[in-house]
Each structure stands twice: as C-alpha cells, then as structure tokens.
C-alpha cells in the first residue's frame, strides 16, 4: 500500500511505531556521538573495523535490546493511577538493573565475539566499574523518564480527544432530541389550523401548507455540524411565524429587521429559532394582546467586531426553573451550542425591562472571511 505524505506522518506518530523509531534513532545518535568524541583517541589502540563494531555493539545493540526489555516491564506498570513516587521508584530500580546488565553483557560479548581473555573481566578497577555503571544508570534513568513523559502525554491526548468526541456526540444527540421535541405540538396544531381553513378559506389553507412544507424541509436538512447563512435561518423563522400568525390571528405581530450586511454571515443552524419559539411560548402567556415580536440583527463596530442577533418580545421573562415546570431546554441548548462552537467568543444576553424581554446572541465577525474563501457554502 502506498502511503501519501499525510498518512505517512500519521503512521509515524502512532504510539506503537513511535517507540521503535525513537528508540532506534536515540541510541544510534548516541553511538555516533560517542564515535565522534572518542574515536580519534581510540583509533591508535586497535583496528578500525573492530572498533566501529565494538562501539555499535556496546552503545547501540546492547542498550537497544535491554531497553526493549525494560519497556515490557514498564508496560506492566499501570499509568492509570500513577504517583510520582511510584514511577520514580520503578525508573531508578530498573535503570540500575539495566545498567548492570549493560555493563557485563558488554564485556562478555566482547570476550565471546572478539576472543578477549576472561582475565580482562577482572582487570577493570572497581572504581572504574562503579563509575561506569553510575553513568549508564543515569542514561537509563533519562530513558525511563522520557518513556513515561511521552506515554503520559499520549494518554492525556487520548483522554482529551475522547472527551471532545463525547461532547460532540452529546451535543448532536441533544439537537436531535430537541428537533423532535419542538415539532409535535406545533405540527399538530398547524394541521388542525389547516383543517379548519379548508372550509373557511382555501387560499389561506394553501399558504399554511406551503409555509409548513418550508419549515419541515429546513428542519430535516439541517445538520448540527454545518453552519448556515443567517438569511436561511431567517427564512426558516419566517415560515414559522407565518404559520403561528394564522393560528393566533390578531394576537401576534412580528417585525423583521435584518441588516443587509448580516444576511450572508454564518451561524450555527437553528440557533435563533429556539429563541423565537420561546418568545412566542412565554410571550403569549405574559404579554398584552397582540404579542409583539421584533427579530433583528446588526453588525456592532467595536473593539472586537461582532454581530448581534436578537429577539425582542412584549412579554415578561419567565424563569422556567423557578416555576418548576422543567428546565429551559431550548435556551440552555442555545447557550451550550454557542459555547461548543465559539468557546468564549460568543455572547448570550437576556435584557429584562418593564414591558419587554430582549434576548441577544453576539457572534464573532471573522466568520465572514470563511464565507469569502469558500464561496457560497458556509463550510
């Protein structure tokens, strides 16, 4: 299978492959470093090829095999509930054992392969042995520290990724639920209205059917992950308002005031709709008739440029969590989606004044650039 550039890097960065790549290249670099440092001095003592092999044997092959073994040991140490003390203990003990092994295997292999005298094993002074083993164990400890740091980093990333994914799934699921929650009551009431209009006013019945079709088509096509243009959202809301106006007759009045330069801006789908729905639901209960709605948008030239979407209604604010009639699902969902989408860059404000309630969303303007780059779509 041929690897493209991207998949090649992905393969390298996979945890399994990364260990071998780093372990081989690490020891290799160290060996070359040793050769560069000590070869000129050692060259006088012996044969060229013999020395190169010896260097590779004791600085590359042996430590590589030993650390591969140490990795198996480390893998058994659970990183789930590690403490710093536990890990340091494991690293110190294993690097001591590893450096003893490294030291004696190095000498033994030299004897076996190159036919040195057994005598040379004992000829090394004790101080030099201790010195060398300490140096080796420092190196091994460093290796262990690096091993754990890289692994903990991977664990942390994995955890982060799974958390993000979970949140995404939850958001998507909630939107799905919300979609189903919104519709039935409104849908059946609309059908009831159409049914009544068929005898009274057939033209009007036809209009309601058209509006309802537009409304349903939109709810079926939106996906929570894709942004849409404000104009589309407003059209969707207009379908909804027209149906509701027929139902509520003279009890509902709605004015749209959408600034021309905001129509092409991108927003998360169905982000304004729940606010309009909420305004009607609670406004009709608290406002004098007719309930007046004012749906607006404008660009706010400010320190950080943003644009404002808002719904003002002539009712009173009802905190549904206070009345015990369930939580304000629609509004909470809007807030949560804004946070997921823009983190700190989006705002949500409820302005409560005598005689009206104004709910505002402010979104960062840079979305407009994204539209220009991609042409028609909102990505």
């Amino acid at each position, binding site marked *: 299978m041929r690897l493209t550039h991207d998949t090649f890097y992905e393969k390298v960065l996979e945890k399994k492959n990364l260990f071998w790549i780093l372990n081989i290249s690490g020891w290799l670099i160290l060996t070359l470093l040793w050769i560069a440092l000590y070869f000129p001095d050692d060259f006088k003592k012996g044969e060229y090829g013999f020395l190169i092999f010896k260097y590779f044997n004791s600085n590359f092959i042996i430590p590589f095999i030993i650390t591969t073994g140490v990795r198996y040991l480390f893998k058994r140490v659970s990183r789930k509930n590690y403490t710093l003390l536990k890990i340091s203990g494991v690293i110190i003990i294993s690097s001591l054992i590893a450096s003893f092994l490294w030291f004696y295997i190095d000498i033994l292999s030299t004897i076996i392969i190159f036919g040195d005298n057994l005598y040379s094993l004992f000829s090394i002074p004790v101080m030099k042995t201790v010195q060398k083993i300490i140096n080796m164990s420092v190196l091994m400890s460093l290796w262990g520290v690096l091993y754990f740091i890289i692994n903990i980093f991977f664990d942390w990333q994995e955890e982060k990724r799974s958390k993000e994914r979970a949140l995404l799934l939850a958001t998507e699921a909630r939107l799905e639920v919300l979609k189903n929650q919104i519709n*039935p*009551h409104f*849908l*059946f*009431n609309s*059908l*009831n*209205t*159409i*049914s*009544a*209009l068929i*005898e*009274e006013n057939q033209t009007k019945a036809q209009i309601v059917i058209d509006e309802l079709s537009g409304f349903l088509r939109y709810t079926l096509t939106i996906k929570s992950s894709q942004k849409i243009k404000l104009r589309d959202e407003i059209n969707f809301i207009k379908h909804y308002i027209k149906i509701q106006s*027929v*139902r*509520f*007759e003279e*009890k509902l009045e709605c004015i749209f005031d959408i600034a021309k330069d905001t129509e092409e801006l991108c927003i998360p789908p169905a982000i304004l709709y729940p606010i309009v729905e909420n305004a009607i639901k609670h406004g*009709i*209960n*608290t406002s004098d008739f007719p309930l007046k709605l004012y749906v607006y948008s404008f660009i706010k030239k400010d320190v950080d440029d943003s644009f404002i979407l808002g719904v003002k209604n002539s009712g009173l604010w009802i905190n549904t969590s206070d009345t015990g009639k369930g939580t304000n699902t629609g509004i909470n969902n809007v807030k949560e989606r804004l946070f997921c989408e823009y983190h700190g860059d989006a705002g949500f404000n409820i302005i409560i004044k005598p005689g009206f309630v104004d709910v505002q969303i402010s979104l960062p303007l840079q979305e407009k650039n994204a539209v220009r780059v991609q042409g028609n779509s909102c990505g």
Partner: protein
Amino acid sequence: MQSEYRAIVVDDERLARQRLIKMLNRFDNIKVIGEASDVTSAKILIEKSKPDIIFLDIQMPRQSGFDLLEKTRIDGRVVFVTAYDNYAIRAFEANALDYLMKPVCAERLERMISKLDKEAGDDFFLSKLSYQDKLFVSDNRQMRFIDIKDITHIQSTGNYSKLVLNTNEKILIYRPLKEWEKRLPGTKFCRIHRTAIVNIDYIEKIEKWFNYSCRIYLSGNSNPLLMSKSYAGIFRERFS
C-alpha cells in the same frame, strides 16, 4: 329517544373552535350552546349555562385547561382536547377520561359521543397506575389532577377512602380501599392495616408495638398509623 347534550367549546384559537363546532354540529344529539377563548370567560359561561359537556383545550395562553378545572365547579362532563402532550395523554388514559387529539378526527369523535351515555371514568378501576402518574380526582367542589407520588397514605372510612397528600390535604373518594391496593404500584404502596395503605417513601420510622404489631410514623404527620400483625409479616417479606 336519545337525550340531547348541551356542549361548549373552550379553545384559544378561533379556527380550532370553529372546526370542532362544525364537526359537533353534525351530531343530532349535540347542541353547541357557546364557546370561550380563555379560562376566565369559560368559567363565566359554565356557571351561567351549566353545559352537559365541555370540550376543553389544555394548552391555552395564561391559564391552561387544568386551571379551569381547579377554579370552577363543573357538573358536566369534560372532554380534554390536546395537540400533543405525552404526560397529559398518559394521565387521561390512566384515569380513563375522555380526550381528543388535534386535529380531531371524525371517527374518533363519533366513538366518543356514542359512549356519552356511559359514566365517565367507568373503567377507571381496571387500570394500574405507575408512581409517576397523575390521578384525576373530583370531589364536590372541583376536578383536578394530583400526583400519585404526593399521596402519603390512604385510610378507609366505610365505603369511602380518604387520600392524604404530603400537603396534609385530605380528599374523600367513594371507593373502597381494596381497589386502591390493586391499582397503586406495589413497589411504593403497601397495605398496613385493614383500614390503611401507606406510601413507603414517607415512612420516617417504624416502632415495635404490642402483640407483634408496629406503629408507623410518617413524615409531617405526628399521629402514628398502626400496622397489624398479619400485614407486618407481608410488609417485612416485601421490603426486606
């Protein structure tokens, strides 16, 4: 000869009222004598004209159909009308009440009207209630729904049973205690005496009493209830 029923329609939407009235006018035994668009005017209309049937929309601005039931003395029969409300529908079904769903279909309306001569809620005591359900009660003053989980205990007094709620409110219903025992969820309600059923969620403590009987103290109620020896055995078996 079939008796004639005088009906009113309560709905906030003119078109919805109009549609239902048109459908009702097709029935010979129904005479629509009035309509109301909100709870306040409906209350006046009901008190003035005393209708036999009230077609009552549930979701209305400001005050719901349930509010009307609590405020008004209704002698007639109530037919609930709703577009979509799972909880309400479950409540109507659990209490075998008449209800219609919007858009009202002609066939369903005809079936409902054909059984008007029967007592409403006749099959009431056949259905089992769950702990989350609402119970429809109508005493002499009013009709309303109460939450099953709000009932702390039920005591019998002759053929009547007295429902006591966690608000210390008492409701007298002409039904024997053994029917409640059948209907209420056995995981929460337990007979403790020939004359009493308790909701175990409200039991504060149980005290040993004479002759293997017990005294049960309910929260918010200082007078203990007596649990007889035979029911104490059943109680222990079920909840331990």
